[in-house]
């Protein structure tokens, strides 16, 4: 369960996200939609403190993930990020072999037994439907995989650490339609197993995937959540006129 309360994200003087409040129950998929530049990615990055890496970035408000305060004094960002998988818009496999891509973080986090490394590698690759495609070439460079395969490898790389939460920042938008459908059905299959927050520009995808929908908009010099709720209800009966126009494809 992710509980975000009045979260604001600042880059220097600029307000990227203002007072965002959102609750995502365990095992559900929450889609975050809205036009470009309205703070969706910043919101996502603040949840696992990736904003710490941006010089001049600052956050206010509270984030609780499974009851644990993300911004608590005793929290190590590295430990926190280990329990939260993050998938980026552009697949970013490391320039290493497929096997090393998956095992790098495991090794760094202290898993050294070969049988465990291998079995977790296989399990993660099976989970993303990549095992049969790559099982004979685990030692080949990950960069030789196709775009869609690379993105699934990145998903496998995240779930091999057994996170409970997955943050996905437009995971399909750089993929061709077939690869995109593949990744989308993968995300669908994760429902119930991970708590997923997915930023997407594809409203049809949001409608297919999401249990919960949050619409971001740039308003009053800052990105805000202007409406949120059960995805089906919100798609069928939006209250906010801007949201109605946006979801109907007339704005944004």
């Amino acid at each position, binding site marked *: 369960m992710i509980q975000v309360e009045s979260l604001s994200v600042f880059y220097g003087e600029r307000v990227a996200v203002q007072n965002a409040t959102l609750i995502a129950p365990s095992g559900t998929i929450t889609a975050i939609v809205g036009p470009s530049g309205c703070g969706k990615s910043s919101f996502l990055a603040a949840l*696992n403190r*990736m904003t710490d*890496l941006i*010089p001049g970035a600052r956050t206010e408000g509270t984030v609780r993930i499974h009851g644990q305060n993300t911004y608590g004094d005793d929290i190590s960002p*590295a*430990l*926190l*990020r*280990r*329990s*939260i*998988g*993050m998938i*980026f818009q*552009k697949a*970013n496999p*490391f*320039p*290493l*072999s497929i096997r090393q891509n998956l095992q*790098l*973080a495991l090794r*760094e*986090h202290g898993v050294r037994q070969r049988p465990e490394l291998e079995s977790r590698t296989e399990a993660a690759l099976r989970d993303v439907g990549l095992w049969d495609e790559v099982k004979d070439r685990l030692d*080949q*460079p990950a*960069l030789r995989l196709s775009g869609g395969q690379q993105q699934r490898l*990145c998903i496998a*790389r*995240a779930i091999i*650490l057994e996170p409970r939460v997955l943050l996905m920042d437009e995971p399909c938008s750089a993929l061709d339609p077939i690869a995109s459908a593949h990744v989308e059905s993968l995300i669908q299959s994760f429902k119930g197993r991970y708590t997923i927050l997915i930023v997407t520009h594809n409203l049809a995808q949001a409608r297919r995937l999401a249990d919960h929908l949050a619409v971001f908009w740039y308003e009053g010099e800052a990105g805000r959540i202007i409406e949120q709720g059960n995805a089906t209800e919100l798609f069928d009966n939006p209250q906010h006129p801007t949201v109605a126009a946006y979801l109907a494809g007339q704005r944004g």
Partner: protein
Amino acid sequence: MTWWSRNTSSQSRRDLALRWVARASSVLSAAVILLIFLFLLQEAAPALANIGISRFFTDTSWHPLSAQFNLVPMLMGTVLTTLGAVVIATPLGLAAAIYCVYFAPRGLATWYRRLIELMAGIPSVVFGLWGLVKLAPFIGQLGGSGQNLLTAMIVLSLMILPTVMLTTCSSMAAVPPELLRGGAALGLNRWSVVRRIVLPAARGGIGVGILLATARAVGETMAVLMVAGNVVEIPTSLLDPVRTLTANIALEMGYATTAHRSILFASGLLLMGLVACVALVAEVRKRSPHEL
């Protein structure tokens, strides 16, 4: 109407003028290199023809006035000082670059970088002077005069350190930021990200930097001449004096005549060949970066 104005009718006169100036200067610089090579070849030809390359390696010693032309001690001098310098400068340069790019506070990193850039501009004779007056007496405490292989390696390593560090900096800066974010998102700490992701990704560029530094070390003359002791012998310890090929040319060119003179040119050709080999390897590596 000349042949070129037809092809380039859309360009202004000024473009044409610039284009010809650029063309002329590139032809000129290429021609100079070629002429130097031909000149070396011409001057070295008598030695290559009359004495033969094999005697450079089989003669009993280097006594050009008594027609003994063994270049092996000098070749060893060049190879050993260069290797030593690269072995010292590589870890230092890598560590400095990693600190500068990933760990130093931003203000400090900028100044640090400038300092290293400045270091690249110090004339080699100044390095030599420092090596002779300060470093050699210090090394001399270990035995001998202090003008020896070890001192030459250290002075040379300081001279190529900026090349290693600056090329490492720029190839690390070229690593896509999404890889760094990907590493951080997996909960890797900064050092792990650098060691496991950045260094493998930047390996190609770092290798090219090391090779460029090697080429510079091979060609360096003055500083090495001032601190290496210049005795013609194959060193058996780090504290033995050495003479490099470059130092040999500089030391003997003034009084060399006939065959002796021609052999110095032949050793210049040898140096050019060494540098060309290093540059060739660098070029090949540059073409296939980030490959596994």
